[in-house]
C-alpha cells in the first residue's frame, strides 16, 4: 500500500517537473532528456498499477487544493490500476520512440510547448483514471482534452493540423457540455459528487445517463460521434497519436465501464443500444479505414472499429446484467477490458510503424510508398505482427479478446429467452465476421502497398531503417502482443475478479478454454520444421532470382503495380451507398480513338455522415448565428431595453416559482 502511494507520488512529481522543465528549458535541453523523464514517470506509473492491483485506497487532497464544491478525491482500485498500467506501458514505449522520431520534426515543432503539453496530457490522463468524484474527473478531463488539442496543433505550420485541432476542440467542447449537464443532474438528485453514490442507466436516471453516455462517446470516437477522430489522430506527432488512439479513447471507455457497469441492475435498453451502436461503429470504422490512403488516417479510422468492438463488449455486459445472465455479462466485461488493453498495445505499435515510415520516407501517403521491406525489415516485422493482432489472427492477443466477444454473443443467443436478444446477437456474429473480413482486407492493403512490391517514389527508394530506439519501442509492443496472445487464458483469469465484482457473481473460473499456448507452439514449430526440411537451407539448389513475370512485355515499372485505391476498389464498389464512392475518369483527346493524349482516373469518396448530417447541421447553426447577430444592432437604447426585458422576465419567473 505504501509503496503504491510512493510510486504514484513519484510519477506525479516526475510529470509535473517535466511540465516545469519544458516551459523553462524546452528549447535548450535535448529531446533525450525529456524522454528520460517521461520514461521514468511511465515506469513509476506502471509499477503503481502493479502494486495497486491488490489494494483499494482512497486519498483526499488537503485543503489548499480544492475544487470549490468538492475536494480532489482519488481512488486506486483494480479497474483503475488496469488502465494506469496500460497508460504506463504505452507511455514507456512512446518515450523510447520519441527522440529518434522527433529528429525529423526539429524545424517544425515548438519543443517547449510540445513537451509541456505532453507531460500535462499524460499526467492528466493518469488523474482522470484515478478520479473518484465528478469534479476531479471533469477538471482533469478538461486538462486532458486541452493539452491533447495543443498537441494535435503542435505541427502548427501545416494548415491541416490547425484545422484538425479546431474540429477536435469543437468535439471536446460538446463532450464536456454533455458531461457537465449529466454530472450536475446527478449531483442535484443524489446530493453527492462521488461516483460511488451514483446509479446510472436505471429507469429514474435515463436522461442524465444518456447525456453522460453521449459525452463519453464523443471522446471515445463511437459512431456517430467519431468524425473528429480521423482528423485529430493523424495530425498529431506519432507518439501523441499512439497515446491518443492507444490510451485516451480507452479512458473514455473506462469511464463508461466504471459508471455504467459497477452499479447493479440497469435498463436492458441501454445494453441493446450500446450493442447496436458498437456494431455500427465497428462496421463503419473498418469500411472507411479500407478506402483511406494516408497510413495514419487509416489507422485512426480503424480505431473507430476497435472502439466499436469494445462497446459491443460493454453492451453485452449491460444486457447480460439486466437479463440476469451472469455468464454473458462476465464474458462481455472481460472481453471489453481485454480488448481495451490489446487495442492500446497494437494500435500504438501500428502508429509507431507508421511514424517510422513517415520519419524515413517523409510521406504517409500509400501511393508514394512501396518496397520498404528491403529497407526497413524490422519495422515491417513489427507492423505485420501488429496487423495480424488487430485482424484477430490466432494465436495473437487480438484474437483472444475477439473470441470472448464471440463467445459472449453466442452464449447470449443460447441462454436468452428474448427473441430480440437472440436475433440481435446472431446478427452481431454475422456483422463481426464481416468486419473481420474487412479488417483483413484493410491491413493486407496497408502492408502490401507500403512494404511490399517495388518503391513507387524516389523517397520510398531512399528509405533507411528507423533508429534503433524506435525499433526497440516497436519490438517491445510486438512481443507483448505475442505473449499476451499465447498467455491469454492466464490474463483473462486475472480479470475475473473485476467481472465478478461487476456481475456480483462468484468468479466463474477460466473463461478462455482454448489451448492457445500449445497452438502457438505447434504452429510455429510446424512452420519451422517445414521451412528447414522442405524449403530452406538444407536443399541443394538455391533458388534462381529473376524478374517478376511481366507477360513478356519487358520490365515492369513501379507504376504498373496495384495502388491502394485499386486494391480496395472492388470492396468500395460493393459498399458504394455508405461510402458515397464513385470513380471519375477524364480523357483528353478521346476523338483520337486508341491514342488519347491523357487519361486521368480518380476515385472520389465522401463520408455519408459528414456530408449528409454534420455539414447541414453546422450550416444551420451558422445561419442561426447570423440571425442572432441582428440583436446586436449597436444602439445603446436597444441594449437598455434588452436589460429591462430580462429583468422583468426574471422577476416574473421568480414570482411564479
Amino acid at each position, binding site marked *: 500500500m505504501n509503496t503504491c502511494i510512493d510510486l504514484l507520488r513519484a510519477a506525479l512529481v516526475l510529470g509535473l517537473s517535466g511540465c516545469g522543465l519544458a516551459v523553462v528549458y524546452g528549447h535548450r535541453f535535448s529531446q533525450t532528456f525529456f524522454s528520460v523523464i517521461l520514461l521514468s514517470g511511465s515506469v513509476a506509473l506502471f509499477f503503481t498499477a502493479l502494486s495497486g492491483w491488490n489494494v483499494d485506497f482512497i486519498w483526499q487532497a488537503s485543503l489548499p487544493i480544492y475544487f470549490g464544491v468538492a475536494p480532489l478525491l482519488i481512488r486506486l482500485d483494480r479497474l483503475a490500476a488496469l488502465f494506469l498500467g496500460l497508460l504506463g506501458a504505452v507511455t514507456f514505449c512512446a518515450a523510447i520512440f520519441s527522440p529518434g522520431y522527433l529528429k525529423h520534426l526539429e524545424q517544425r515543432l515548438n519543443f517547449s510547448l510540445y513537451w509541456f503539453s505532453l507531460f500535462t496530457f499524460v499526467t492528466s490522463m493518469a488523474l482522470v483514471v484515478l478520479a473518484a468524484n465528478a469534479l476531479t474527473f471533469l477538471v482533469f478531463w478538461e486538462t486532458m482534452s486541452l493539452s491533447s488539442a495543443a498537441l494535435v496543433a503542435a505541427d502548427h505550420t501545416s494548415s491541416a493540423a490547425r484545422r484538425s485541432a479546431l474540429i477536435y476542440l469543437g468535439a471536446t467542447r460538446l463532450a464536456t457540455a454533455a458531461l457537465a449537464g449529466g454530472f450536475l443532474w446527478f449531483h442535484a438528485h443524489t446530493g453527492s459528487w462521488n461516483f460511488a453514490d451514483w446509479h446510472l442507466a436505471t429507469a429514474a436516471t435515463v436522461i442524465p445517463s444518456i447525456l453522460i453516455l453521449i459525452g463519453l462517446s464523443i471522446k471515445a470516437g463511437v459512431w456517430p460521434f467519431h468524425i473528429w477522430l480521423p482528423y485529430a489522430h493523424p495530425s498529431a506527432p506519432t507518439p501523441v497519436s499512439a497515446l491518443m488512439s492507444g490510451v485516451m479513447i480507452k479512458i473514455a471507455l473506462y469511464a463508461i465501464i466504471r459508471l455504467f457497469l459497477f452499479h447493479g441492475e440497469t435498463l436492458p435498453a441501454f445494453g441493446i443500444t450500446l450493442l447496436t451502436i458498437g456494431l455500427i461503429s465497428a462496421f463503419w470504422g473498418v469500411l472507411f479505414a479500407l478506402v483511406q490512403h494516408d497510413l495514419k488516417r487509416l489507422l485512426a479510422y480503424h480505431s473507430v472499429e476497435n472502439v466499436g468492438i469494445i462497446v459491443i463488449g460493454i453492451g453485452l455486459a449491460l444486457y447480460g446484467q439486466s437479463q440476469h445472465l451472469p455468464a454473458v455479462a462476465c464474458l462481455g466485461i472481460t472481453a471489453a477490458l481485454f480488448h481495451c488493453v490489446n487495442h492500446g498495445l497494437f494500435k500504438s505499435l501500428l502508429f509507431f510503424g507508421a511514424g517510422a515510415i513517415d520519419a524515413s520516407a517523409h510521406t504517409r501517403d500509400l501511393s508514394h510508398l512501396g518496397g520498404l521491406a528491403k529497407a526497413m525489415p524490422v519495422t515491417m516485422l513489427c507492423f505485420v505482427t501488429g496487423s495480424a493482432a488487430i485482424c484477430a489472427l490466432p494465436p495473437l492477443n487480438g484474437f483472444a479478446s475477439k473470441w470472448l466477444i464471440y463467445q459472449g454473443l453466442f452464449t447470449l443467443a443460447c441462454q436468452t429467452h428474448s427473441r430480440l436478444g437472440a436475433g440481435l446477437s446472431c446478427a452481431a456474429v454475422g456483422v463481426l465476421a464481416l468486419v473481420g473480413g474487412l479488417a483483413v482486407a484493410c491491413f493486407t492493403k496497408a502492408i*502490401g502497398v507500403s512494404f511490399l512490391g517495388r518503391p513507387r517514389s524516389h523517397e520510398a527508394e531512399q528509405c533507411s531503417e528507423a533508429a534503433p530506439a524506435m525499433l526497440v519501442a516497436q519490438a517491445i509492443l510486438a512481443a507483448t502482443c505475442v505473449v499476451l496472445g499465447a498467455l491469454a487464458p492466464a490474463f483473462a483469469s486475472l480479470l475475473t475478479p473485476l467481472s465478478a465484482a461487476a456481475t456480483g457473481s462468484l468468479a466463474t473460473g477460466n473463461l478462455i478454454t482454448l489451448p492457445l499456448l500449445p497452438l502457438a507452439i505447434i504452429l510455429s514449430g510446424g512452420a519451422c520444421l517445414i521451412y528447414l526440411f522442405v524449403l530452406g537451407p538444407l536443399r541443394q539448389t538455391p533458388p534462381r532470382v529473376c524478374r517478376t513475370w511481366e507477360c513478356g512485355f519487358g520490365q515492369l515499372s513501379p507504376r504498373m503495380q*496495384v495502388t491502394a485505391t485499386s*486494391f480496395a476498389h472492388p470492396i468500395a464498389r460493393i459498399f458504394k451507398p455508405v461510402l458515397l464512392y464513385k470513380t471519375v475518369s477524364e480523357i483528353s483527346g478521346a476523338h483520337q480513338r486508341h491514342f488519347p493524349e491523357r487519361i486521368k482516373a480518380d476515385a472520389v469518396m465522401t463520408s455519408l455522415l459528414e456530408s449528409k448530417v454534420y455539414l447541414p447541421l453546422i450550416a444551420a447553426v451558422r445561419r442561426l448565428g447570423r440571425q442572432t447577430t441582428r440583436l446586436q444592432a449597436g444602439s445603446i437604447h436597444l441594449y437598455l431595453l434588452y436589460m429591462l426585458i430580462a429583468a422583468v422576465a426574471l422577476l416574473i419567473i421568480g414570482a411564479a416559482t
Partner: protein
Amino acid sequence: MSTILLWLLTFSCLLFLPSLTIGIIRKTKARLQNRVGAPLWQHLFDTIKLLRKSETVSENSSWILRVNTVINISIMITLAFLTPWLSFKPATSADDLFLLIYLFAAIRFFAILSSLDPGSAFGAFGASREATLSVLVEPAIILALSAVALSAHTSNLSLVFALTANTPISQAPLWLLAGAGLFLSSLVELSRMPVDDPTTHLELTMVHEAMMLENSGPNLALLEFSSALRLVVLYGLSGQCFLHALHCIWPFASAAGILLSISIIFALAVVTSLIETVSVRLKWTRAPEFVAYGLTMSLLALLVALVTGVSS
C-alpha cells in the same frame, strides 16, 4: 487400439484424399467433356515432381514469400486435425468454431500478402479479389456453423458434429440448409467455378491462380497441397452437415459413417465438376450475387435454429 486405427485412418485421409478429390473433379469433368483426362492421381504426381524441382524467385520478394508457405501449410494441417470434417476423426480439445474461422483468416492474410509481394499487378488483383470474396463469404460460413452450433448449445464443433443417437427428425432442415450454405460458400472460398475458373491462366479475372503466379518448385507444391487440403476440409464439413440430415431421417451405424463421410466428399466433388461443366464463370461484378445464395441459406439455417431453439 481403435483410437490408433482411427488416427491412422485420419492421417491417410489427410495425405491422400486431397489429391484424390482433385483427381475426381478433373476426371469427371474430362469425361463429361468427352476427354480421357489425366490420371486420377495426377495431382499427387505433380506435387511430388514440384517438390523435386528447383525454383525461381522474384527479385522483389521479401521474407513474406517463405513465411506465407510455411504458415499456410502448418495452419492448414492443424486445421485438418481440428475441424470435424470426417465423422471418425478423433476429437481434439481446440475445435472451437470461432478459432477455426480465424485460423482460415490467418491463411488468407498471408496468402494476400504474398501475392502482393512480388509487385506484379496480376497477383495484386488476384489478392484484391480474394479479399473481396472473403469479406462476403466469411459471414456466410460463420452463420451456417453458428446455426448448427446454436442448436447444440455449444461452440465446440466436435460436440456439435458428434453423431448422437435418436436426433429428432425436425433437425433435418437445419442441417440441410447449413450444409447447402457451407457448400455454396466453400465454392467461393475455394475459387471454384461460378466465381473463379481454376483451370485458366490467362483470364483477367482469375483469383486463386493469379495469387500463386510467382511461386514455383517446392513452394508451389506446398501451396497447391494446402489448397487441395482446404478443399477436402471444407467439402467434408458441409458433407458432415448433409450426413447429419441423413442421420436425422435414417439413423445409420457409426461404421457406415466412415464410408459415408468419405464418399460424400467424392459426391460433392462430382457435383462440383457437374457445376463446372454446365455453368460458366460469372462476370466479376456479379460474383456477390452468387455469394448471396450461400448467405441466404445460412440465414435460413440460423432462423430455423433460433425458432426451434427458443420454443424448446
